[in-house]
């Protein structure tokens, strides 16, 4: 069997400071096949962005402690030196960030920021890199691309900036694209355009994509599979349709209940009571137990294992029936 594009086993990420150690990610395991798209759903602070950044070694180097195994495109990410990581970043795996305003360098032109990535990884000449930058701006459908090459980030709208960000990320045809809430900072209409663009590019370029979002609409639009994250763990994982229609874990049910969608006029919006746990200490049993309406004895001694009624869809909850 060939190795999947991404293989993560028992990934743990801790941030160590003098005052405290924050256990941001506590044992995440998953695979991603080539051309597959996975969406990681969760509240802020659930560890989804940290997981994503761990895939390309982008967490702050001095304070971060990693353990477990992370392989991306055949590279061992945990063991790689910073030099080696720099070669992998941008070429094998690249990332789109949440805030297109702050994620681009304000004093360099868009064209230069794309071209320098190409020059760095593919050793192209300045002229060839500029030509590639123009192609990329056309690929991400920026109107009057030629003129936009010489534009600075502040001269573009949010949507165009995010397109430019995507152009940078795709400039060296990565096998894996990571997207950290790529549409959160954008207007609703622009969000849809960006999502459609990403979906089309993923299909055309045959990339694997991992999305992080707290927006269920985004997940439904793009993902093949969805993973729900809570307190640094995947607590439910399954195909997008199955999970959206029939979430198994009480937290996932709560998350889906807390969104506004059509056909619920007059109904009450439900919220999940309580707040996520403080990650300075890892909770012993199910991390959601203190907020769960269905908590029972069996939840507390240890973290429930994944159980699922159908293959491919499973949750860490003792109440989920286990298929034979």
């Amino acid at each position, binding site marked *: 069997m060939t190795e999947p594009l991404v293989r993560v086993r028992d990934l743990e990420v801790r941030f160590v400071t003098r005052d405290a150690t924050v256990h941001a990610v506590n044992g995440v395991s998953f695979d991603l096949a080539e051309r597959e798209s996975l969406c990681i759903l969760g509240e802020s602070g659930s560890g989804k962005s940290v997981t994503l950044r761990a895939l390309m070694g*982008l967490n702050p180097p001095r304070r971060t402690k990693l353990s477990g195994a992370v392989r991306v495109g055949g590279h061992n990410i945990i063991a790689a030196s910073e030099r080696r990581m720099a070669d992998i970043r*941008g070429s094998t795996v690249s990332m789109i*960030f949440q805030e297109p305003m*702050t994620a681009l360098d304000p004093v360099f032109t868009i064209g230069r920021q794309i071209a*320098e990535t190409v020059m760095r990884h593919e050793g192209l000449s300045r002229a060839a890199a500029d030509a590639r930058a123009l192609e990329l701006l056309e690929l991400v459908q920026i109107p009057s691309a030629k003129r936009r090459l010489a534009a600075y980030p502040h001269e573009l709208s949010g949507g165009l900036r995010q397109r430019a960000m995507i152009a940078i990320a795709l400039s060296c045809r990565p096998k894996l694209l990571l997207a950290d809430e790529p549409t959160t900072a954008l207007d609703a209409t622009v969000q849809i355009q960006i999502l459609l663009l990403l979906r089309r590019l993923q299909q055309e370029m045959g990339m694997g994509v991992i999305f992080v979002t707290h927006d269920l609409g985004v997940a439904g639009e793009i993902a093949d599979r969805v993973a729900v994250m809570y307190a640094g763990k995947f607590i439910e994982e399954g195909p997008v349709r199955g999970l959206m229609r029939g979430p198994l874990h009480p937290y996932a049910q709560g998350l889906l209940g807390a969104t506004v969608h059509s056909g619920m006029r007059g109904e009450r919006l439900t919220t999940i009571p309580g707040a996520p746990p403080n990650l300075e200490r890892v909770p012993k049993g199910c991390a959601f137990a203190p907020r769960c309406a269905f908590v029972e004895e069996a939840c507390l001694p240890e973290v429930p294992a994944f159980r699922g009624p159908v293959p491919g869809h499973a949750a860490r909850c003792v109440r989920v029936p286990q298929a034979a």
Partner: protein
Amino acid sequence: MLLYLVRRVLYAIPIALAVGLVCFMLVQIAPGDPINAIVPADAPQEVVEQVRRDYGLDKPLPVQFGLWLMKVVQGDLGRSLATGRPVTADLVSAVGNTLTLALVAAGIGFVMGSLLGTVAAVFRGSLLDKAAIGLAAAGVSVPHYWLGMVLVVLFSVTLNWLPAMGAGPGGSGAWAWDWEHAKFLVLPAVTLSVIPMGIVTRTVRGVVAELLNQDFVTTLRGKGLRRGGIALHVLKNAAPSVLAVMGLQLGYLMGGSILVETVFSWPGTGFLLNSAIFQRDLPVLQGTILVLAIFFVALNLVVDLVQTALDPRIRRA
């Protein structure tokens, strides 16, 4: 960009005029009649009136200002009351000396400050950082006339390596770029460089540390850029604010430090000002202040232009 440049230069003209007016008025407001400095205290009234007329001091103020301005524009700053020599000639040589000292001191201070500040920002919280901050704080707080004297005691008196005062061998005022002259420059330049070094260190540290925390630096790492590539981006982002501080510091140094130039008997503008004040030598005082103020205006203009060239976000205004 060219239009912007022309506009900025035009803006500088009214500022320069206002500076001239303030210089002129300064003397009028100051207590004491300059006539007293020229004529003996027991001179008869007619003589006083005669001198007053000769110097044009009997005309109404606006006329005096106009006449003064006309001459200034032609490079004539009048004659020194104390020596009778043309102010312009004395000022040119003093400004030249101060400029030499200021540029060398600024060079030392800016290079050291940039290095210390960058190291401190990159290794924030480490021992290196604390050492750099300590040095910067010391640089800003140590009174530099005291530092000058300590250096003289150490390097001139005790070790006898460097001359203690003057701007050249045999008390010559003529500057030349050789070791014989440069020896005289070392101690005052080092003394003067300490304050800009401290201020630049703190500025660079603050700016670079803040930049390193910005999202776009993560993007740059995410693109696979190495340290050198990232440094280039940080440098261009840091340059405008750091240059603004450097420009201001250079302005202060151009003004010449009265204290340091006096400690080292350096024949610059500070020295000139000092003696002009004690001798109530108004034309020298006026001329010196005017030239220094114009320097400041010009320097600010240059900093503004460089900033605009480096940061595309300013150009919109």
